[in-house]
């Protein structure tokens, strides 16, 4: 029987992952776009099939996994952590020890099906070990304790240079390829160009498919954790910890569990991140990475899985849009005419003594350079979203949805 939309007559249908037809359609459409995007066959999205954009979207998928983890800790269980980058680092270097190429630095050269789960497991284990310390302190103390974790972690990573290569050179991380064991030729390599099922794909497109697949699995898992007993316990701790304890939620146990799951996600994300960029220095797992993940969670909408997808897209892609826009504007400022040129000139400085919000010149000149402008914009977005839209992009989406639900009436 097809009932009224949003009429749920059983808990099963209410708690279903896709509890409305629209969700099913939208997610299906999104997945279809993801599947076809690298092929460059979608009109209007052909630009996305270029290598540089594929790389960007790969990064989005990796950070999405990290954000899903933090979302469980911060969005569901309500514990603020600035230490996510530390756990990503643990995951990355676990992967490096197990799967990294054999050489002067530690590396056993094991295949992905060993190092990826191990990265998650080790990070989760470290999370469990550290959790009791962190969970003794409450609320905002935790934010600073986890901040300490990042600094101590960075120090350790820097100094274990037989694993990490130190700050000077960094190290090479395991390649993204599927092997049975240590044989020479991988069964599937994601890091070489080649054809799959008769379709020519670049290495970037292959990595994109792999990372998106991981991200989909991670999202489904996160959604299911949220719907499970543990997920409900997390949310009750977030909303009222004392009330949660009275209703029988073991606060310490579930906080530790949230910490462990979150660090496990971070470990997997860190390992994938490291393998994706293939070479990086210990400082990559510092405070800015933590802040980036927090920004994704807050901008996307804390506690909501689909919000994480929006958030990671937004946070990673926006700087590139600004960069492209700057290039476009500086072209206009140089060669445009009339009012268009004046407007472009206001935004972009092209000469040394030229006024402009963004300077397209290297070196010092009035105005911020593109990187700095992006930083300022990024900070302002965090501030703006928290002040004006605490539910993040998801909140905006909810408002649009509700508007059309009642259309043409206002309620």
């Amino acid at each position, binding site marked *: 029987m097809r009932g009224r939309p949003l009429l749920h007559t059983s808990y099963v249908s209410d708690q279903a992952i896709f509890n409305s037809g629209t969700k099913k359609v939208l997610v299906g459409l999104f997945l279809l776009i993801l599947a076809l995007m690298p092929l460059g066959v979608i009109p209007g999205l052909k630009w996305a099939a270029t290598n540089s954009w594929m790389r960007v979207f790969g990064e989005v998928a990796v950070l999405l996994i990290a954000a899903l983890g933090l979302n469980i800790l*911060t969005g569901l269980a*309500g514990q*603020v952590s600035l230490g996510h980058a530390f756990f990503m680092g643990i995951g990355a270097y676990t992967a490096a020890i197990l799967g990294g190429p054999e050489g002067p630095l530690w590396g056993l050269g094991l295949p992905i099906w060993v190092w990826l789960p191990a990265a998650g497991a080790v990070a989760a284990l470290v999370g469990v070990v550290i959790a009791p*310390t962190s969970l*003794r*302190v*409450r*609320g*905002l*103390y935790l*934010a*600073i*304790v986890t*901040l*300490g974790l990042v*600094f*101590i972690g960075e*120090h*350790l990573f*820097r*100094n274990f240079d037989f694993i990490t290569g130190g700050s000077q050179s960094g190290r090479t991380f395991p390649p993204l390829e599927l092997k049975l064991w240590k044989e020479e030729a991988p069964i599937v390599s994601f890091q070489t160009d080649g054809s799959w099922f008769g379709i020519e794909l670049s290495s970037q497109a292959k990595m994109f498919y792999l990372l998106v697949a991981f991200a989909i699995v991670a999202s489904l898992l996160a959604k299911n954790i949220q719907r499970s007993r543990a997920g409900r316990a997390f949310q009750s701790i977030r909303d009222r910890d*004392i009330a949660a304890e*009275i209703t029988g939620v073991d606060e310490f146990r579930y906080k530790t569990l949230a910490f462990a799951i979150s660090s496990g996600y971070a470990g997997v994300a860190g390992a994938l991140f490291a393998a994706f960029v293939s070479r990086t220095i210990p400082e990559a797992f510092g405070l800015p990475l933590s*802040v980036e993940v*927090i*920004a994704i969670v*807050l901008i996307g909408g804390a506690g909501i899985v689909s919000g994480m997808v929006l958030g990671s897209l937004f946070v990673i892609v926006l700087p590139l849009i600004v960069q492209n826009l700057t290039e476009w504007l500086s072209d206009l400022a140089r060669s445009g005419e009339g009012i268009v040129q004046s407007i472009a000139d206001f935004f972009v400085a092209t000469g040394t003594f030229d006024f402009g919000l963004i300077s397209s010149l290297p070196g*010092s000149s009035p105005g*911020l*350079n593109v990187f*700095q402008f992006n*930083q*300022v914009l*990024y*900070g*302002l*977005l*965090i*501030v703006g979203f*928290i*002040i004006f839209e*605490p539910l993040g992009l998801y909140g905006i989406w909810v408002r649009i949805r509700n508007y059309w639900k009642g259309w043409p009436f206002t309620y």
Partner: protein
Amino acid sequence: MIDTLPVLAQTDLSSLDTFLQMLVGGLALGTIYALLAMGFVLIFKATQVINFAHGALVAIGAFFVAIVVLDFEIPGRWMPGAPEWLTWSLAAALGVVAGGLIGLLLERLFIRPMVGEPLFQIAILTVGLDIVLRTIVDDIAGLDGRPLADPWGIATARFGNVTIPHTQLVQFGVVLFLMIVVALFFRSRTGIAMRATAWDQEAARAQGIKVGRIFGISWFLGALLAGVAGVFASIFPRAAGVSSATAFVAFGAFPAIILGGLDSVVGAVVGGLIIGLAESAASIYLVQFSSVLGSGFSAIIGYVIMLLVLLIRPYGLFGTEEIRRV
């Protein structure tokens, strides 16, 4: 984070002089941390906000001093005959107050609309503010930094075998003065109002205290103290001027805040001194163990101490324990 002392070529680790020199360096760093922690705790007590933008306020205060001293030459341009230390101090005071006003502005624009929202959201908001402000200061100050042109330069005084830069002598005096001022402030009418606000905002309001104004004052004072710390962190022997590195002093002060307890001003001072001394001691006595502890261990020893103390006392040394009642 910063090196506490110029490393001497030959240091006899067991000598008393080394110890005294370490003590001086530790106090110099510790008082900077104490200033930062005091400002931070002032803000936290009055408004319940964890201010991650404290580092930016450090840089902004010091940067304003650099501008007032070198670019505006206020009040030096009107006082041609006055001694340099006087004009510089006045200029520095002006710059630091300007930095305090920025704190006031931040509170009005960004923190006030968030009153009543979840505290962690406000904390993350200040992280965003920190990014914005630091980037702008970086852009203006440039990578090589701006000198503060203080009149003491690199002059040092010797007491026995212990060397103390003149700047640090000035610093000890200023910090002591500020601590007394803050202590007196808490006994003033406004100070009592602030303590009442920290105790219970609603009750304070019912007594006729303008809580909004108290919020503003606390941010002004916090930013002002941060600016003073910024000045001493950007002159000899710590740095050659305000630069993108100046703001990182605040990261060294966070352990001090937690160590003393988030809501205790006395704790902030004690915590600051402990962390400063520990960093200084580690940079001298633990260098020989760097094969085990790793190079640059002194920069993170504060966080290690913080974690250890929290294991025993989750609310810091002087913090009030949060009592949970059903």
